[in-house]
């Protein structure tokens, strides 16, 4: 007797939907026949709100988009505004931004690692990776003053200069993190259960990944060596040496391996930036009431989740005419159905985890 297909609502209240996401599933026993993400539970109308805020006031609001990588959002927005103004940023400020954003990438990847492993059932990894993340958040607290919604970029640079105690904290973190990462890799990399849960699960081909517009680690896991930091350098990324990790299979395990390698590369970039930190200003003065002549601009950066972009259209006043955000999680979530159709119900959780979505960024 064939098992009747049942409709299953996963979320909006469910332990592993990373926020308030609802997945409408049709399952045949355990096999997923169809899947539809339902989003909008966290929709705050950010884009509408931005139209009534000044350019400076928008920055703290971008913290609330991808709340696990607030500084990356700050940077993407601030760079877009600076491009619109034609503002040149001092070299030291650019390096400080790189340090902040790479630390943020570490924090975001570490949070992802913990949640992903927890979704697959390895709950201890969450606590180990959060120990590392805590160290980075302490750095943010000491440097900028907040841990999660950091608000650590200003139009024209970064709000504070980097002082020696914070440099010491960063150097200590750079030494500590690889040790604990090695422990986590010992727990997961060879583990047969982890491999069962990740290898060949949620695979997507290179062509599909491009068609769906996947970006970031999810795209690199399919074999496309695409990293905006390297290919369209911004904020002095061309000064640093780093590798762009690429894997071929496009499955959950490859996404995991790509991100683990990115953690190492980020550590490398931070180390280089600290060693070569140029002297100079950390913030250039911009007029207090910032009026930007009419124009439009689209600027993207490589955020931890993928390609994060801001389209800004100005109209000559101190408020933008329109700000549109291209959020990587929104794009990546769209391909969830392709990845998980025909897989088991348990795998949907793992695939969702491996995509590293944040609902604050999807719903805007």
């Amino acid at each position, binding site marked *: 007797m064939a098992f009747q297909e049942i409709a299953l609502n996963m979320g909006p209240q469910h332990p592993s939907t990373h926020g308030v996401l609802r997945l409408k599933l049709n399952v045949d026993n355990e096999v997923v026949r169809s899947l539809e993400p339902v*989003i909008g539970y966290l929709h705050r109308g950010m884009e509408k709100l931005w139209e009534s805020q000044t350019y400076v006031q928008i920055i703290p609001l971008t913290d609330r988009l991808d709340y696990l990588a607030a500084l990356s959002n700050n940077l993407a927005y601030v760079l877009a505004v600076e491009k619109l103004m034609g503002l040149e940023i001092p070299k030291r400020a650019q390096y400080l931004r790189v340090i902040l954003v790479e630390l943020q990438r570490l924090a975001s990847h570490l949070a992802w690692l913990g949640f992903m492993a927890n979704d697959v059932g390895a709950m201890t990894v969450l606590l180990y990776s959060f120990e590392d993340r805590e160290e980075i958040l302490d750095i943010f607290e000491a440097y900028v003053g907040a841990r999660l919604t950091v608000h650590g970029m200003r139009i024209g640079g970064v709000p504070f200069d980097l002082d020696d105690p914070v440099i010491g904290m960063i150097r200590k973190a750079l030494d500590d993190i690889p040790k604990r990462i090695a422990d986590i890799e010992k727990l997961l990399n060879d583990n047969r259960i982890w491999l069962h849960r990740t290898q060949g699960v949620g695979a997507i081909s290179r062509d599909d990944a491009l068609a769906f*517009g996947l970006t970031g680690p999810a795209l690199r896991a399919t074999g496309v060596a695409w990293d905006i930091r390297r290919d369209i350098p911004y904020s002095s990324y061309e000064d640093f040496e780093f590798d762009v990790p690429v894997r071929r299979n496009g499955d959950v395990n490859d996404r995991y391996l790509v991100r683990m390698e990115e953690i190492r590369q980020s550590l490398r970039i931070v180390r280089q930036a600290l060693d070569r930190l140029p002297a100079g200003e950390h913030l250039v003065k911009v007029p207090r009431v910032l009026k930007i002549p009419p124009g*439009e601009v689209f600027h993207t950066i490589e955020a931890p989740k993928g390609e994060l972009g801001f389209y800004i259209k100005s109209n000559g006043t101190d408020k933008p005419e329109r700000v549109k955000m291209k959020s990587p999680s929104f794009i990546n979530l769209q391909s969830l159905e392709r990845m998980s159709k025909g897989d088991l119900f348990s795998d949907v959780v793992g695939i969702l985890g491996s995509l590293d979505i944040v609902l604050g960024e999807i719903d805007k």
Partner: protein
Amino acid sequence: MPEEWIDAPALKAVAGSLAARFGEAILETTFEKKELAVRVRAEDVLPVLGHLKSELGFNALDDMIGLDRFPPPGDERKRFAVLYQLYKFPEALRVRVAVDVGEGEAIPSIVGLYRSADWAEREIFDMFGLRFLGHPDLRRIYLPDEFAGHPLRKDFPLEG
């Protein structure tokens, strides 16, 4: 018409190819802040994007952006615009195609060309109320189905 003041040779070639192929359909070509933007007629959006994708290799759709110019700026330009931000791997080229849409008008959907346009078109429908012909499943994406109005329109009331 290829513009002489485009100082990026690759983008200049793109603009030239579009002008040669479509001529009249290209209403405007601008190059500002190192970004190439072309404005085309709404009925030509599919051929233009198809040409950009298959001939010129713009293989990814970065983003779709809806704009509301309220009140409508004049007779020539319509109230709404949809911008297609295209992207070329691995040369790192970007081009922005703009289409003007009037109140109550519909434009062709590009889901057949770029799969990732699916949710982006739904978002624009949700926020601006623009219809996309041929979209497989044009529903609201963020707001509940019974919601009245389209919040990113400039005349949407800000206070209840």
